[in-house]
């Protein structure tokens, strides 16, 4: 008896990727994708999804392992080889030229394949008719909503004869209605025989649209399932399960008065979409509130609104009982709030020295009349460095020349030395080694013990579980769950981060 194997579109065999900086992104990923499937690839930030797709698209080379496309070993020296083989990629950030019309973009993108302008437009119209993808050819990209731009990217891939379409977190920029439209389009594309790789961290979407799903965690394949046969719970478990690195000493909390209160806060993102949708929370003295969630679910806009960097659209923010909703950041900081941003390049000016960086957020202390007291500032810098174990040649060393851990410790120390009452720490240990991570986490617990309120934003679930007295999960701009830490476990947070609401 002959068993006929279904034809394979893509086969990954033992893909390893070690970046030059030693970061291991993939540890032997192997799985195969059948022709005509919508195939989900699920994982958290840093699970290796994007690295794997960039390898498939020829943008980066694997350290070892092979890829077969339609049964032929693929050796790509760049994306153009991939495109010629029939692979199309739609990134989260589109590669379209904003000032050009849709038609111009399509023509330009097909030029290297030797397809004439006339031919491009004919093909575009054909594939639009076949799949119901409608894009206005004569409009400029800049005047189109994001959802339509994404369609242009898909049409672009079709015009280039894509047989395999990769969509990297395609719904992260879309409104719910646009997501539904996209799913309709994807189903039609599947009918026409296209193979679709759907990269996501959202469990709901995996269930809604994919035929099969592979879960990646820390560069390894945790398993492949038929979507129909797997529960969201199982997927969540596969996505987040891990051993805890180290534990922290924490005394029981004795929370005091609420220091930060947020009521019905709405904030828009840079692209004008609602990013925070009606968030309510309150943090008391002597308490750490941890907000978990996959990056890009509104956390950044949320903390920027609280710290006065971004104007909220609606809602109130109270700091120690005082309404600070409309104050700008310098006034907010002066009233006792400290914000430690997730990018050190945002909290520190890399090309100037430590003292100057200290001065930047604390000018009124060291130059009450507009003249800088350098000696006082240098002393303070030294004391921050000593208190927070910052290793640097001198206070005059460029911040750029410090290690990431030392930069983080300095940024934290600078803010804490101002004696704020409310500290917002966004990804405070991202990219730090184990020692520095432990140090920073201990400091945050110390602050809580001394009666401060700490708002911790982190995509690292261990960190959230270890540090928080209370946990909230942010998903698509909403806090979809909030409660004491004992009511949560990794699995539950994993589900919530994937957008599945669970009852406690």
């Amino acid at each position, binding site marked *: 008896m002959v068993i006929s194997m279904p034809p394979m579109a893509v086969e990954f065999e033992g893909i390893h990727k070690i970046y030059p900086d030693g970061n291991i992104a993939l540890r032997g990923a192997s799985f195969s994708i059948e022709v005509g499937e919508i195939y989900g690839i699920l994982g958290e930030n840093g699970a290796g999804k994007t690295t794997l797709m960039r390898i498939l698209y020829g943008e980066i080379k694997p350290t070892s392992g092979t890829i077969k496309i339609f049964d032929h070993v693929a050796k790509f020296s760049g994306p153009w080889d991939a495109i010629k083989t029939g692979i199309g990629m739609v990134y989260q950030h*589109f590669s379209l030229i904003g*000032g*050009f019309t849709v038609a111009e973009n399509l023509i*330009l993108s097909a*030029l290297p394949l030797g397809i004439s302008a006339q031919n491009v437009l004919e093909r575009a119209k054909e594939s639009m008719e076949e799949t119901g993808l409608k894009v206005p050819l004569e409009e400029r990209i800049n005047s189109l909503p994001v959802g339509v731009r994404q369609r242009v990217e898909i049409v672009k891939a079709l015009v280039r004869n894509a047989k395999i379409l990769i969509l990297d977190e395609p719904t992260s920029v879309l409104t719910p209605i646009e997501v539904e439209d996209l799913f309709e389009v994807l189903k039609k594309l599947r009918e026409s025989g296209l193979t679709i790789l759907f990269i996501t961290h959202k469990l709901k979407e995996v269930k809604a649209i994919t035929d099969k799903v592979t879960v990646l965690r820390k560069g390894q394949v945790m398993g492949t399932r038929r979507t129909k046969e797997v529960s969201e719970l199982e997927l969540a478990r596969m996505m987040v399960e891990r051993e805890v690195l180290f534990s922290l000493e924490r005394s029981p909390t004795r929370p005091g008065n609420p220091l930060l209160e947020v009521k019905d806060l709405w904030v828009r993102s840079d692209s004008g979409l609602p990013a925070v949708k009606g968030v309510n929370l309150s943090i008391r003295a002597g308490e750490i509130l941890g907000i978990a969630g996959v990056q890009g679910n509104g956390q950044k806009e949320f903390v920027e609104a609280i710290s006065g960097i971004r104007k909220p659209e609606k809602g109130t923010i109270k700091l120690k009982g005082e309404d600070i909703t409309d104050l700008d950041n310098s006034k907010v900081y002066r009233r006792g709030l400290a914000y430690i941003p997730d990018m050190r390049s945002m909290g520190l000016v890399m090309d100037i020295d430590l003292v100057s960086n200290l001065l930047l957020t604390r000018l009124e202390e060291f130059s009450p009349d507009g003249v800088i007291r350098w000696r006082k500032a240098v002393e303070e810098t030294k004391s921050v460095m000593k208190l927070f174990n910052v290793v640097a040649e001198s206070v005059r060393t460029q911040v750029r020349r410090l290690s990431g851990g030392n930069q983080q410790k300095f940024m934290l120390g600078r803010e804490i030395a101002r004696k704020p009452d409310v500290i917002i720490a966004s990804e405070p240990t991202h990219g730090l080694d184990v020692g520095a991570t432990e140090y920073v986490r201990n400091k945050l617990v110390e602050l809580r013990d001394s009666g401060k309120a700490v708002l911790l934003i982190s995509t690292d679930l261990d960190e959230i579980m270890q540090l928080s007295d209370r946990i909230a999960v942010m998903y698509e701009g909403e806090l979809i769950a909030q409660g004491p830490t004992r009511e949560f476990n990794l699995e539950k947070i994993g589900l919530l981060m994937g957008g599945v609401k669970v009852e406690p």
Partner: protein
Amino acid sequence: MLGEVADLLFGALSPMIPLVLAGVGEIITEQSGVVNIGIEGVMLLSALTSGVVAYFTGSVFLGLLIGTATGLALGLLHGVLGVYLKGDQIVVGVGVNLFAYGIAVVTLVTLWGTYGSSPQLPTVPKVEIAGYPVSPLLPVSIVISIAAWYFLFYTNYGLKLRACGEDPRSAEAMGVNVNRTRLIATLIGASLAGLAGGHLSLDWVGQFTKEITAGRGFIALANVVFSKWNPLYALVGGFIFGFFDSLAIYLSITSMNPSMAYLFKTVPYVATLLVVAAFMRKARMPPSLGKPYIKE
């Protein structure tokens, strides 16, 4: 009165040529995302080299050719420093301007022993139209503008070139070689500025002086803004700015008070300032203009 108006209008045709040539060249360069404010220096140096070549060989054509080649060479310098080595394009442009002025003075002294101007040079033969002498470079510059317009907006290569000025990252993702395209655009632009320089010494003035460009490179830059980066409008802008040039010459010749003549010489510059101030706000420049393309 009517005769004077005709004089003024026909008088604009000569000053218009360098503004159109250099302006159209700069439009091509800027559409690719490179700004070359060194075209003043390119024009000066090209005016010098074409003058020197024509002086020693007697060939105007060879002079213009060498002037264009000088532009090409300076464009190569600008392209290598500003495109491939990611240098600051403004600084490179200023450098070329200063360099050109220095070379011009040194050459004048070395070759002809003067600090001001060269001896008379052979010039392009004029064609007579309605009693006014018109340079054959005028139709040449008109043809070049129309060709540039067609090239930029109706050909594949023009599409690629403009993509580099709009969004180099996306352009590259769509298969455009951004750096090479920008270099070529810079070469074309500087070559046209070189031809404009040759026109100054071998067509319009008939000798080389160290102030022969008198800021015309910068007026050509103003023409780029006026024309909204469209070579066809650059023809109109060239004529308008050329008219003010012609007006300044007319006013200083006919003025009774010789000291007033100096004041009238400011007319083209003041007019440029006003026109740019009026048009700058409405202009949409290529979004990536002047930004080196650095890959991740």
